[in-house]
């Protein structure tokens, strides 16, 4: 998965994925997310993670970006944004 990629699951689809920094995501059926920013360059001390949940149910477990640079991690919903200091949460969005 790369920066600015979108992911959608169908009515009977599930998706689990692990990003390079060990961030883990799980998407229930009928869920849509967009990875707005993903920067994991520990050698240059550059980090960023912005995930937008458009609809559906998402579980998130933070990775090394949240560990090294918690202020750079943000989850967005259409109705509000989340700043994360770890580590495990679930978001449901009904558009």
């Amino acid at each position, binding site marked *: 998965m790369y920066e600015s990629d979108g992911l959608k699951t169908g009515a009977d689809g*599930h*998706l*689990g*994925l*692990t990003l*390079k920094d*060990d961030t*883990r*995501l*799980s*998407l*229930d059926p009928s869920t849509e997310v967009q990875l707005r920013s993903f920067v994991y360059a*520990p*050698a240059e001390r550059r980090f960023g993670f912005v995930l937008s*949940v458009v609809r559906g*149910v*998402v*579980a998130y*477990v933070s*990775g090394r970006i949240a560990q090294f640079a918690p202020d750079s991690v943000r989850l967005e*919903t*259409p*109705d*509000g*944004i*989340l*700043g*994360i*200091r*770890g*580590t*495990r*949460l*679930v*978001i*449901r*969005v*009904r*558009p």
Partner: protein
Amino acid sequence: MMRFFVLAFSISLATACTRHPVVTQPPEPGAFVMLLPDPDAATASQVTVSTPAGTVQLANEYAFTNLTPNRSPSPVLMMNGADADRMFQSVLAGLPPKPLHFSLYFESGSDELTSQSRMELADVLRTVRDRTAPFVMVVGHTDTVGTPASNYELGLRRATIVRDRLIGAGLDASTIEATSHGEGILLVPTPDDTAEPRNRRVEIVVQ
């Protein structure tokens, strides 16, 4: 004609079967955010939930808030843990297994593993074999003896040795990545031209 009828019938039946009564979900549009326990977390979890109209903090396991358009987040509420686990059972079950990290160490100036790390390589291989869809990242590092350019090469040789061992053990080459940071990320900070066994390593992440 008959075939069309059967198909239409089975679709309406399937639709009827998926209509479960839903008790806990709010009917109106909006978002719901809940903090969950994390047995692996070293530090306390906290989530700040903000809308243009206000902010709340979730700082306890199973604390949640509801977001509705153009309103402040609802005051923090608590859900019974068993209810929450049941409610989000499928999405939580869909999380991939926790990534595991390993460090293997090398003899000075060489791509030869120390005798202890040769044994630990077996743990890495076992972890990889236990996963249904493994992805492995191997990053080679060196101490500060030598030039940055030669240490980049040495780090890459170290990573490649480990990569080749994993492929030899049956891991698909397309699911393993070997790179080098040379002397760029020291585990133990040292001046230049300093032999330091703990910096002569590969770091392995098994996802």
